[in-house]
């Protein structure tokens, strides 16, 4: 589904971010479903707080918190995004054609975030149910304190992957520079291959699930044991 010529266009060369977001929020009560945002110029909080099945195309780079707390909507960014893209997303789809800065998908509770380039540090930090698929690589501390959801990395992962992880599941195809506290490699069983295949398909990533390794929590730090104090 992509915005067509009939899409409602907002040009941020003349309109403000406030006007854009207000119109998108008002559209939840009925109105155009397809939107196109021109000249985003790295503005912050673009298409934040959407709460309807809208289809929004951002024609360029976006700043911090693009599609923050998204619900239901599909947001596509034809460029790079700043810190915290799709932070705390509840549902819907966010696709970044370029790369993402830090904390992509932070604390997200649902929906799918696809980053076609690479993501920087703390991708999926404190993730709580979101699925994230990165076509490229991710920086350090990916899925830090990840509680729920799945992070798929087709490239490499930086140091401290999955540090202090709870129940999030991590799949990495390339090299992992290092695992964080309580994160271990785990067996790839059939159900994992199946869910990974589905995620790769949804994200349009041309990769073979058989090439991935799975990581998750050893669950040794779940209850504080003084003999583990050195692990933190």
């Amino acid at each position, binding site marked *: 589904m992509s915005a067509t010529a009939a899409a409602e266009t907002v040009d941020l060369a003349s309109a403000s971010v406030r006007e854009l*977001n*207000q119109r998108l929020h008002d559209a939840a009560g009925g109105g155009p479903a397809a939107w196109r945002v021109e000249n985003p110029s790295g503005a912050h*909080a673009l298409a934040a707080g959407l709460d309807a099945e809208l289809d929004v195309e951002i024609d360029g780079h976006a700043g*911090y918190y693009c599609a923050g*707390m998204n619900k239901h909507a599909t947001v596509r960014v034809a460029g790079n995004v700043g*810190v915290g893209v799709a932070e705390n997303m509840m549902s819907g789809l966010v696709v970044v054609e370029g790369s993402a800065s830090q904390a992509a998908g*932070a*604390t997200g509770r649902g929906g799918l975030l696809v980053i076609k380039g690479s993501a920087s540090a703390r991708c999926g930090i404190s993730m709580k149910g979101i699925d994230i698929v990165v076509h490229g690589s991710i920086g350090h501390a990916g899925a830090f304190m990840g*509680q729920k959801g799945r992070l798929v990395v087709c490239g490499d992962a930086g140091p401290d992957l999955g540090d202090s992880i709870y129940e999030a599941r991590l799949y990495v195809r390339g090299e992992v520079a290092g695992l964080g506290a309580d994160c271990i490699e785990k067996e790839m069983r059939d159900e994992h291959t199946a869910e990974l295949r589905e995620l790769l398909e949804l994200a349009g990533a041309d990769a073979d699930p058989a090439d991935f390794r799975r990581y998750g929590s050893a669950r040794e730090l779940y*209850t504080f044991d003084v003999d583990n104090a050195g692990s933190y």
Partner: protein
Amino acid sequence: MTEFDVASKQEGFGTEATGRWRPGLRESHLFDRNAIHEIHRMAREGIYDIRGFGAKRKVPHFDDLLFLGASVSRYPLEGYREKCATDVTLGTRFAKEPITIDIPITIAGMSFGALSAPAKEALGRGASAMGTSTTTGDGGMLPEERDHSTKLVYQILPSRYGMNPDDLRRADAIEVVVGQGAKPGGGGMLLGQKISDRVAEMRDLPKGVDQRSACRHPDWTGPDDLEIKIGELREITDWRVPIYVKVGATRTYFDVALAVKAGADVIVLDGMEGGTAASQEVFIEHVGIPILAAIPEAVRSLQELGMHREVQLIVSGGIRNGADAAKALALGADAVSIGVGAVVALGDNSHHFEDDYEAIGTSAGFYDDWHEGRDPVGISTQDEELAKRFDPELGGRRLANYLRAMVLETQTLARACGKSHVHNLEPEDLVALTFEAAAMAKVPVAGTSWIPGQD
């Protein structure tokens, strides 16, 4: 004594009853019975102590200040006849819908998880009956709480447990929590015994884990990011509701200036006396500054920016009664916030439960193991049987009464100083009993014009 007896006795160090004083026995000031007991406990367990409540050490506080009532040079207001207003409007700087509370006392953020659902409901009932606000906590917004709170402040904490844009849009104000007075620089704690099914589900955590929340926000660092974060929250809520920034009292002058720069409508400032449901004791007692010292620093910062009363200041930390509240307002706060006081008003540490307290090795008036979830009163627990002991309607009435009494006390003092609104109280109405309090509060020592550090 057999070898076994010796070993088991050593194992028991730190659990034995403390000694009894007799003439001729001199206790060390430094190594007193509590210090010795704690060293034994550390030697046995190898870990810091975790507890609830707030700082128990004595620090300069509002008790060290006195009001100068009216006399020949000032005239007072009639206690029962002349009006002394108490309303406070919060969020006048940027919010389309500022909130007005009828009394200058709000209920501080306390999580569902730390407190039982009925206790959260009672806080909402009591606050609503008095026309003031209550605040969520590190665990999301509970439906019981929203339903029984006419004005509800939704906290955004580093953990983001239960964070939900629907709740954000349902809130009457948003509070970005950077830190709290009991542990500035520390994250939340909720130990496994309090992670029930419902708490686990709201927080997206496995049941029974020891939850140690993040101490920093996941998606912003520093004042410039905070400004962008606040911008996002305003966009999501269409600039309707006020956005507060809560900080623990440390480098208050700078923190307040940076929060104002970042776009806060309201600053919430929590002194080191502020309560907690679970923190390391070393944190509770040794980090942060007393609220008495912090308020004048916050007010100075706001005044220099031309923002005093434009950005409202809510202060908390050890506020127990109308005298504490009135003194905080006189120093320049717009409102105060209570946490421990509210929990005590609900019945915490009540002597009616002395037998139950003794059964868990404590006593009414001393109970602070709120993190253990065994609260006999049913407030700081997730045990359904214990929680059933607590009646939210009665609790709500008790809280409303407590607030009512606090307001009457505050008004009594304000009228005595000749003020027709509690906000007309000013530092000039105060003197200090000690040099320390005088220096911190920046008011003169009683009977002198001396403010230590100002000449």
